[in-house]
């Protein structure tokens, strides 16, 4: 299993996302390392199809497929949930579904 966390340092949410991801991985007994990939420029964002920070991909699949196709940008990513709320980090449920 490959687990990537792509982030841009201009957004403060990646430490929170990493901590949540580590927690969920631990609960599932998954020991695969998290590969942290820093996105520095707009060109890199385009090359990596980076829709905002943080973006988590498990075996290449975005944990939030609905937002994965947003235009590449160096900005904080918006995660929208079924109850209408928004967050700068994916939900525990999204991570668990991506790992299932």
């Amino acid at each position, binding site marked *: 299993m490959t687990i990537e966390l792509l982030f841009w340092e201009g957004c403060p949410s990646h430490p929170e996302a990493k901590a949540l991801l580590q927690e969920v991985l631990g609960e599932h007994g998954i020991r695969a390392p998290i590969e942290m990939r820093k996105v520095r420029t707009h060109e890199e964002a385009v090359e990596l199809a980076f829709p905002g920070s943080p973006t988590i991909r498990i075996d290449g699949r975005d944990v939030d497929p609905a937002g994965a196709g947003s235009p590449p*940008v160096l900005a904080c990513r918006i995660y929208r949930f079924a109850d209408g709320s928004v967050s700068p980090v994916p939900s525990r449920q999204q991570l668990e579904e991506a790992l299932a």
Partner: protein
Amino acid sequence: MSVIETAPTFDLPGVDGRNHALEEYDDAPVLVLVQSCNHCPYVLAWEGRINALQREFADRGVRIVAINSNDAATHPTDSFESMVEHARESGYTFDYVQDESQEIARALGSERTPEAFVFDADRRLVYHGAVDDNREEPEVTAHYLRDAIEAALAGETPPVADTPPVGCTVKWRS
């Protein structure tokens, strides 16, 4: 970048189709400027609380003005047209203006969105920083902005005068 000590002079286009200048708020005993934008999830998380504060303090003359200084060339979702749409969809009860030149953001010393600046009746800065202490509203234990407004209305010093703003960076022009 250091934070401003007195309210900056401004005259900026608002989403209501007219300009808003500092003098327009002369009668307000407290003026709150909030560095803001459309696209940031932290703004989206807090804007409802900012809206509620404007409603709560409106009858006491408090005015809140949100200022979007982000570079719309690199972040098109922060264009003026998107501001108009966002303010309508979110039911903003406060003025929302565009600082296209970014002069006001620079004058304020802004770094993040959202980032609040509370000015008393003499337009001296009495509070700068976060709206409260938690992005998740049910988890909030310290209401920094509300407490600062209450203190300023009473002519007192806020219990907390400065906190680190939490949010997206201001998107400066390159």
